Each structure stands twice: as C-alpha cells, then as structure tokens.
C-alpha cells in the first residue's frame, strides 16, 4: 500500500514541477492512452482475449461526444448538455463493446485478433466514407469540454487532474476486480474455458460481460481523448493507432494493471523525443528498435524486466552476510 501512496503523491504533485507541455501533452496524454490500454489489459491479461478494437470503442465514444454535443463543423452537433453527452457516449461505447464481444468471444487466439482487427478497419472506413453523420475524411472539429465557471477543463492542470482521476478510478477498479468473483472467473476462463463451462459458468456471456466492462473503461478514456484533441477524425481511430494500443499494453506488461500506464508513458516519451535523438527521417526506426529491445529482453514487458531486476537484487543481498555465518541471520533469510 505504501508504494501506492508515494506514487499518488508524486502524480498529484507532478504539474507543480513541470511546465504545461509535460503536464498536458505528456502527463495527461499518457494517462489516457494508458487507460485505453488498461481496457486491453483486462481483456488480454485477465481474459486471454487480445482485442485490437479497444481504440475503436474509445473512438465510438469520442464520435458520440462530437455528434451529440457541440462541434464547429456544421455536421450534426446536436448540442445536448454535457452530462447527457458523457453518459450516452460511455453507454454507447459499452454497448458497442458488448456487440464486438458477442461477435468475437467464440474465437480463440489469432482469430480473436483477426476479427477485432477487421472491426477496427471497418469502423475506420465507415467513418471516412460517411459524410452526413461523421463528416468523412475531415471528421468533426471544435469539440469543447464543459466549463465550470472559471474552470476550463482543457487548461493543462485541470485536464491533467481529470485524466489522473479517470486513470486512478479504473486502475483501482481493475485491481479490485481481479480478486472479485467476476474477475477470478474471467482468469479461470482464460486458463481453461472448457472446465469453467463444466463447472456451471456461461463462458461466452462472461466474456461478453468482460468486453462491456472494458468498453466502459475505453469509452470513458475516449470521451476525455476527444476533449484533449478538440476534434476527432478517421485518423484518430486508424489501424496504426489501434496497433499502438497493443504495443503499449505489450511493452508495459499485461499481468498487472500498472503495466499499460508504464507502457503508455514510455510510448508517449518516445513519440515526442525520439525525433531529438536522430534526424526526422529515422525517428520511427528508433521507436521500433526500442520496442523490439523491450520485447526481446522480456516477454512480460517492462513489468517483467522490473520483476527480474528485483529478483536479481534479492538474490544478491544475502551474499555479503554469508561470510559471517551468523546462525540467526541465516535463519532469517530462509
């Protein structure tokens, strides 16, 4: 528990130490991308279902905000009050995620990835070709977060704290759920779906429910992301970005909900600063090599590297005590 209090204090104090760029473009963005990747960690790490459509779910929430709320594109923009828009966006994201789940849960492994990839691709082309509602290639711009008196949510610090609150709530929820009945059953289904069915569980329904909950997580992050960008277009929900989410989850580590956030931070830092290390033409190569190195060194991502380092430190510490051969000390070490 102690380490979480330290982490929380650091995250809360972060904007007072850094400028607007690091608060908004790095801090808030990493927290939101991490939250989308967290929804993938729930499905992939606990449910054994690697889905490439989590960004699509976030994008559905984002488009819903732009369509039902206000935008400056003269397409849709129904002007609903913000709380209606947010509730509707998250609910629609959860429903869409359940439908994606219903289509994909009867598949396993690579086929789940293919089906969810197909869904992501079709959503991308659908919004690009549909002008009456989604305004096609240009998308919908001028999407504003709500104002509360003098508090403007897109100012760096307020937006950072909003992103931190979203990330923290879902991080805590996922950590809690891991040991709840639903979460335990989900992990058991990952380990042995046939046995779970024989024990009386409705495996497909359980998986769809996991998609729905992950949809709430991705959808909420999607709402905040459309406020972050101020606009949404097919490029926001493209396949390259969908794969970025998978990369974030994999380099962070899928075993623990902290993994996606570590992955997102590394990803955002690389995306912003790799260009300073090397010329403009080559910076994607640097990013790619970094990810390759992480996955090569540790299949469990940065989390796995962290565990390895900790084990190495533990294995090293007793050594200086050995020459002394103090019986009490040796006993303690066992």
């Amino acid at each position, binding site marked *: 528990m102690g380490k979480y209090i330290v982490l929380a204090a650091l995250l809360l104090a972060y904007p007072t130490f850094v400028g607007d760029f690091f608060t908004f473009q790095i801090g808030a963005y990493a927290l939101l991308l991490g939250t989308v990747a967290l929804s993938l960690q729930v499905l992939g790490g606990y449910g054994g279902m690697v889905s490439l459509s989590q960004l699509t779910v976030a994008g559905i929430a984002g488009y819903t905000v732009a369509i039902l709320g206000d935008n400056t594109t003269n397409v849709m923009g129904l002007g609903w009050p913000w709380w209606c828009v947010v509730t509707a966006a998250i609910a629609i994201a959860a429903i869409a995620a359940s439908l994606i789940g219903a289509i994909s849960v009867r598949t396993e492994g690579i086929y789940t990835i293919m089906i969810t990839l197909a869904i992501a691709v079709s959503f991308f082309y659908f919004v690009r070709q549909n002008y009456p509602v989604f305004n096609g290639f240009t998308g919908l711009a001028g999407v504003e977060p709500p104002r509360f008196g003098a508090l403007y949510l897109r100012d760096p610090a307020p937006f950072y704290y909003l992103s931190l609150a979203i990330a923290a709530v879902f991080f805590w929820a996922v950590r*809690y*759920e891991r*040991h*709840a*009945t*639903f979460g*335990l*059953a989900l*992990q*058991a289904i*990952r*380990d*042995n779906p*046939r*046995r*779970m*069915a*024989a*024990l*009386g*569980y*409705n495996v497909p329904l*359980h998986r769809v*429910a996991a998609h729905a909950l992950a949809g709430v997580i991705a959808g909420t992050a999607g709402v905040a992301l459309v406020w972050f960008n101020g606009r949404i277009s097919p490029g926001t929900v493209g396949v390259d970005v969908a794969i970025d989410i998978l990369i974030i989850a994999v380099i962070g580590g899928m075993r623990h909900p902290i993994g996606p956030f570590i992955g997102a931070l590394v990803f955002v830092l690389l995306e912003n600063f790799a260009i300073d290390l090397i010329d403009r033409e080559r910076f994607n190569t640097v990013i790619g090599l970094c990810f390759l190195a992480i996955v090569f060194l540790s299949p469990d991502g940065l989390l796995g590297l962290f565990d390895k380092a900790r084990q190495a430190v533990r294995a090293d510490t007793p050594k200086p005590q050995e020459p002394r051969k103090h019986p009490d000390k040796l006993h303690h070490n066992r």
Partner: protein
Amino acid sequence: MNQVLPPNPNPNILDLSGVGRQFGALVAVAGIDLHIKRQERRAMLGSNGAGKTTLFNLMTGDIPVSQGTIHFKGADVTVLKPQDRVRRGLRRTYQISQLFGLLSVRENVYLAARGIAGNRFSLIRTQAKDALMQEAENCISAVHLDDAIETEVGNLSHGQQRQLEIAMALVGKPELILFDEPAAGLSPTERRDLVRLLKGLPQEIGFIIIEHDMDVALQVADLVSVMHDGRIFKEGTPDEIENDDAVQALYLGDGHG
C-alpha cells in the same frame, strides 16, 4: 410432522438405457445399460480404449450421445448441457487435471463452489467469512491441502493437483461423483492416501471410479463393472470380479498387451 412419504419409485440415481456413441465408423460405446443406486460406489475397469472415459463424457454431457437415454435422479437429462447436470448434483474429475494454473488452490475450489451456487457475475470481492469460501476451505481440508491453500496451482505437485481435482468435485453437496482415474501417476503412498480419502467420503456421496489399478478399484467399490470394446463385459462384487477367469484373461492377456 409424521408425514408418510411415498416409497421412492426409483432407488437409482443414474440410469443409462441403450446409451451409445460412435465417432465416424468407430463405436466407442455400444448400447450400454447401466443402473447406479443412490450412495452406490461403483468401479469401472477395462483396458485402454474400452470406452470408459467416453462413457463418463456421455454421462456428464461433455459429449452428446448417439443413441439411448440418460436419467439422473429419475429425470431425463439426455440433452442437458454439462453445467445443468452439475447443478443437479452430478460432478466429475478429469483423467488429466483440468485446473486454473495461475489461481490459488483456494480460488480454484471457490470457483467450483460458485459455479453451482449462482451469482457468478458478482463484482464484489470475496470475503474469508463467506459461506462459500468456508465450504471451499472445508473441501480443501478434506483432501489435506490446507498447507497449500494459497499456493498457485501451477506450482503444485502432480499428486496435489489430483487431490485438488477431488476437492473441486466435493463442493456443493454432490450426490454422484465420476472419478476418472484419480490414481493416475500417483506414488504408492499417495495411492494409499487416495484410497483412505475415497473410503472416508460422506456416505451420502455415491461415486463411479475409473481405475486401472485393480487394488485401488476393488478396495473402494461395492460393485465392479468391467468394460470391453464399448460394452459392459461383466458386473459383480469385487470378490467375484477378482476371481473371474474371463476378467483375469482380459486383464492379464490381451488387455495389457
């Protein structure tokens, strides 16, 4: 209170009539009639490929029957799904352990208990004092796994995993358990423990046990059925089966060849 109950018309817990299963041209189970009484303990013997495990899969619904009917506690369950049969009190263990390797012993047994009890989508964390958690702990004690209760199942020994399989079959007041070779791969000591465990099960729990080890099977069973080529070849008490020449020939002759 002195209500006179009508005599139970059917003393059997499980009735198989003409149950058969083909896989393409292969006849795995050929029209078997089998009647198991309540609280009965029955052993199924037979060489590899005799159809014992297939028969179990038909009883539990893991594989649908090709023909015949299955009645459990008097009700026709022939087309019911496995989970519906589980909820009626029919449990099984697997020849190859089917466990949840990254969860603890406690969590494995708890999930088995929860599967029968309902409320399987609860988003609330489990508490140590929950009735189901208590029941899970009791079942873990019954198979002597108390010391390993928090251990991740993937780290258990083979013998402990077999014990855990049995604990998962004991939750939720089962009336009939199908044990599929529970002694497979166990050491002689572990076999003795297993026999003691099976003999010590509450009397109201009946079971059918598939076992290659004649000693184990004959010690724990009231009645023995010997299967051969998808049929029941012989039925009798352990003594009768042990001294039956035809069974001996089958077991020591071509059966193990």
